[in-house]
Each structure stands twice: as structure tokens, then as C-alpha cells.
């Protein structure tokens, strides 16, 4: 039984702060995904949990044990690397059994565990091969096998699928998800691919600039982003943003307008807002629909017709660009004027500190 807890974790490279105070608790058996743009510190954080990087300050508990100074081998973890990091001079059997050999596991038990792992990952026929004789997907399988054979409490994945082609990535993603259900172990997964994050995670941790921006379930992050960064990062295509001004406040209903938006009324947490305030309006491309009386009017730029949907880039009066994903095939022409209405239940307002003004969930 091993959950993790991170308390005020910091990491400095010399004078350069990379992780600026991360507090996080992860329950046993949870699938947690660290996601964020390149250089946000997600891999560093994972490597600190693994014990490959020192922790400058803060406390890392794995299970009940304080693990700041514990050697990686004693932390009860296993890690899968982006580059697979298979030992080129050993065959698959020895690659998988390497950790057991170091732990001086008796030969018969070792053999049983290796074959059991090979069975789980359906790679019994690969045991005699060297890594160089394997395809990318097979190497990934071996790397995962090397992790599960040691029966760790916590699995760490560092962008394990980014070297695979698109089709294989979907397969392996499902396999990892299945594996998680089968083993019931805690898994921490680092990726910059939000599709992986959304599909795999019980809990997503969004990082930017070494700071946790938001922690929550995938849908929670999508529907109720805590700030502008999370709103922009989660969801594809990216959320559209536009500056607006508050016109009127009636209870929790705020009416805003701006250069690009005419009188849009939406529900928001209005407690700290007064008329005349500058806010940012965010609308997801999927929440826009063509409407002759729409509050957003722009000139059609690029049109991508995918058959089941049409992705339109729209140039607004303030010359900012929006994307809209419209249902079905829309025969639009470049340069034409298009009016769109935004789904006001799903549009989000952000205050000057870029925090979202989503009304508190009922109850």
C-alpha cells in the first residue's frame, strides 16, 4: 500500500529554481498524470520522486516513509524511460530479470517471475532476442516488463509513448490503462500530450513554470479550469480568449462586451467584480455555433473541412484570431463574414489575475 505525499518540494539548479514548491498527495492505486509544456518541470519532479535528482527542500513520503535521502532501489519504485533504456548487451529475458538478479532472487523464482511478466505483456516469443532486434512497440513492452517484474508499489512513466508512431501509441495507451487496472498499483505518468493525459488519468496535475496550476480529474480540468493557463492548455483545439469589459452585474449574472464581443451574459462568480472591470473571456472552439444574431462576428480565414466537423479560423475586429469547430460540413468561403454564438453555459471569465470566475459548484 503506497500513496505518495509531496510537501513543499523545491528544486534549484545552482541559483535557478526549477520546481517552486509542489504540494501534492497521491492515493494508493491512483493513476496520476503530470502534464505541462516543455520545461515546466514535470520530468524533474518525476525524477525527484524516482531518486535520480536530489530534492533541494521539502519532504517526499512514499507510503509512510520519508524518502528524501533514500536510495532509488529502496523506494519501491520502477520507472519506464522515454528512450526505453534497455541494456543493449542483454537479451529480453536478462533485461527483464536484471533487477531480480541484482536483488539476488533465487534462480527458479526469478525464472517464474520473468515468464509470468512475459505472459502478462504477451512477449513470451521475444525472450531470446536482443533489444536491437525488436521494434519500437516491442522495446516499450520490454521496458514496461522490466518495471512490473519487480512488483513495485509505484510506477513512474517518463513520456513512455512519445517515440512510438500514432497507431501504436493508441494501442500502448490502452495497454497501460489495462495494466493499471490489472495491477492496481500507483502510477505516475509524465506527458506533454493532453490526449494521453485525458484518457489515462484518474487525476491530472497541470504544471507550468515549476508550479502546480491545478489538480483534478480530466473532466474537471476541462470544464472548470482554475486559471487561464489550464484553460488554454487542456482541450484541443485551444480555448479562444478575448479581453472584455463588465457592463452589468445582476446577481451572479455578468454581462460583458468588448471590441470583439457584443453583450454576452453569463453565469460567473461575481463577488469580486464590479462594472467597468477588465476581464478575459474564454470560449472553447467546440462551444461556438453559427447564428445570424450571434454576438461574435468575424471574417473567415482558413477552413479545414473534415467531413464530420469543420474547423474555421476567424479573424475578429481586434485582429485576434479565433478557432471554431462547427458541426457537420460547412461550406464556408475565405473572406466571408460569419456570426457565431457562444454557449454561455460553458464560456468562462477570467479576472485580471488570470484566475477563473467559475461559479461555485452547487452544493
Amino acid at each position, binding site marked *: 500500500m503506497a500513496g505518495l505525499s509531496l510537501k513543499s518540494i523545491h528544486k534549484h539548479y545552482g541559483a535557478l529554481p526549477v520546481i517552486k514548491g509542489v504540494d501534492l498527495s497521491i492515493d494508493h492505486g491512483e493513476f496520476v498524470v503530470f502534464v505541462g509544456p516543455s520545461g515546466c518541470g514535470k520530468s524533474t519532479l518525476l525524477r525527484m520522486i524516482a531518486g535520480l535528482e536530489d530534492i533541494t527542500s521539502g519532504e517526499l513520503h512514499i507510503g509512510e516513509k520519508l524518502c528524501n535521502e533514500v536510495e532509488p532501489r529502496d523506494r519501491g519504485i520502477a520507472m519506464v524511460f522515454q*528512450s526505453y533504456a534497455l541494456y*543493449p548487451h542483454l537479451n529480453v529475458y536478462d533485461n527483464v530479470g536484471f533487477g531480480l538478479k541484482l536483488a539476488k532472487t533465487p534462480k527458479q523464482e526469478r525464472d517464474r517471475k520473468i515468464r509470468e511478466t512475459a505472459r502478462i505483456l504477451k512477449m513470451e516469443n521475444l525472450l531470446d532476442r536482443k533489444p536491437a532486434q525488436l521494434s519500437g512497440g516491442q522495446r516499450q513492452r520490454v521496458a514496461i516488463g*522490466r518495471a512490473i517484474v519487480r512488483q513495485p508499489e509505484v510506477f513512474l512513466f517518463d513520456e513512455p509513448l512519445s517515440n512510438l508512431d500514432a497507431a501504436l501509441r493508441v494501442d500502448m495507451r490502452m495497454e497501460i490503462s489495462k495494466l493499471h487496472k490489472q495491477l492496481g498499483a500507483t502510477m505516475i505518468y509524465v506527458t506533454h500530450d493532453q490526449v494521453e493525459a485525458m484518457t489515462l488519468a484518474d487525476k491530472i496535475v497541470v504544471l507550468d513554470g515549476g508550479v502546480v496550476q491545478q489538480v483534478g480529474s480530466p473532466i474537471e480540468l476541462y470544464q472548470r479550469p482554475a486559471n487561464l493557463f489550464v484553460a488554454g492548455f487542456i482541450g484541443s483545439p485551444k480555448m479562444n480568449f478575448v479581453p472584455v469589459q463588465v457592463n452589468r452585474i445582476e446577481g451572479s449574472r455578468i454581462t460583458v462586451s468588448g471590441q470583439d464581443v457584443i453583450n454576452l451574459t453569463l453565469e460567473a462568480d461575481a463577488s469580486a467584480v464590479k462594472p467597468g472591470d477588465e476581464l478575459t473571456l474564454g470560449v472553447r472552439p467546440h462551444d461556438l455555433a453559427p447564428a445570424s444574431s450571434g454576438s461574435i462576428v468575424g471574417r473567415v480565414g482558413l477552413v479545414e473541412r473534415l467531413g464530420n466537423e469543420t474547423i474555421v479560423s476567424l479573424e475578429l475586429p481586434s485582429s485576434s484570431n479565433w478557432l471554431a469547430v462547427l458541426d457537420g460540413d460547412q461550406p464556408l468561403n475565405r473572406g466571408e463574414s460569419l456570426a457565431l454564438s457562444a454557449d454561455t453555459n460553458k464560456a468562462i471569465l477570467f479576472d485580471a489575475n488570470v484566475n477563473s470566475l467559475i461559479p461555485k459548484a452547487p452544493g
Partner: protein
Amino acid sequence: MKSRSSVIGGIVALVVSFVVFVIPFAFIILMAFKDRRQAARLDFSWPTGFHLWDNLVTVVTTRNWMLITAFINSTILTVASVTLLVVFGAMVGFVLARRKTKWNPLVEFLILAGLMIPPAVVPTIWLLQGISLFGTLHGMILVEVAYNLPFTIILYRAFVATIPKDLDEAAIIDGARPMDVFFRVILPLLWPVTVTNIVVQSVGIFNDFTNPLYYLPGNANATVQLTLYNFQSQFTTAYNLLFTNIALITIPPLIVFLFFNRQIVAGMTAGAVKG
């Protein structure tokens, strides 16, 4: 179709290697078959009689079977020195390539200094005498290791840099201690360089003449190269015996080379295409 120029190039290469490698070797073998009178003429003539066996017996039994002692000494010296060189050179190369500290420039300077500055003989002897290692085989081994270590380190360091660091980390996560990482993961992957090192260093140390001459005096300590002096003197030289001796002591390096030849080629290609 082979072009005319490549055929001519091939013939030139064959002729050059024949002149450089085969003719001297043939000369050595021919001399070993001659008797003393014919050998003294130092010409490229066919032996008049078969004297190889007599020459061999004389060479081996001279000065109380000195050549046998010399072979044993040289073998111990070569095997021990090369083993230490490979292990220590790889270790230093590994640490230098992996761990960046403020001491690295100093260490690199010392390595370069070891390559560039010629060793001073008298102070070395004085030091060896001070620690009672002068004239002993293990003292000689340490001297050979010290002289050849910089070159070995430089070879290894360049190669360690091509091994991805992920492998070290994967091994650490798998529970490897530093020694396990080195001996179970890194050293096996360094095999191509290790072979190069074994060949270059063992041939060099086995054929070393000057260092054993300075640091390893005494009949009991002779190495094979020093036995050549048995048949030369200021006024007379027994050329038939000298060349028989040369033929005998050329054989071990030749075997090393023949044995590792395939591995060197295999190692080169393995390094070129990384799996």
C-alpha cells in the same frame, strides 16, 4: 565493373604491404634456418642447411633457460598491466564522462600531461627504491600502468560519452549499486574499446624494451625483449640465434592480433550502428 585505377591501386597496396610486412618477416625466418657462418653474411639467400632446431635449442637453453623465465615474466607483466589498465582506464573514463565537477579540468590536464611529458627515469627509480619496489615485477607492472593509463582513459572517455545516461539511471532504478552499474552495464558495452585497448597495450607492453631495461635489472627479472642482448656483443653477434630469438618472441603478439582481429572489426561496426 572495377575501374582500371582501382585495380592499379590494389596492386600498389599489395606491393607496399609485401615490402613492409612480408619481406622482413621472411628475412627473419630465413635467418633462423641458417648456421652462424651463413647468417653472418646478412644476405637474402636460401639456407644451405637445416639448422632451425639447433638454433632453437641454443636460444632457449642459453644462460640457464633465460628465455623461459623471460616469457613467464613478460606474460605476467603484460596480463597484469593490461587488466589493470582496462579496469582503471574504463573507471576513470566513465566517471570523467558522467560526473561534471570543478575538478574535471585539473584531471584532464593531468591526463594530457601524462601523455606529453616524457617520464624521468632516475627519479622514478629513486621513488621505486624508496617504496622497495625497484627491481620487482609488481613495481614494473605499476610503472607500465602509470605510463599507459592516460591513453587508455582518453579512449574510454570518448566512448562512454556515446552510451546514453538513461542506461545508468535505468540500472540504478533496477537496484544497481555504483559498482554494479559499472561492471554489469557500462563495462560490457565498452567491449569494442576494450578490445582495441587490449591489442594496443598488450603488444606495446610485451614489446617494451627500454622500461624493463631501466626498472627491472637482474637475470631473474629478464623480459623477452631483453633476451635479445644475449646474442649481441660489441665485437661479435650470433645473427642466426638473434633472429631465431626474434622469431620466437614475435609469435605471442601475432597470436593476440589474430585472435582479436575479428572482434576489432565487429566492434567497429557495433559502435557505428547503435541499437
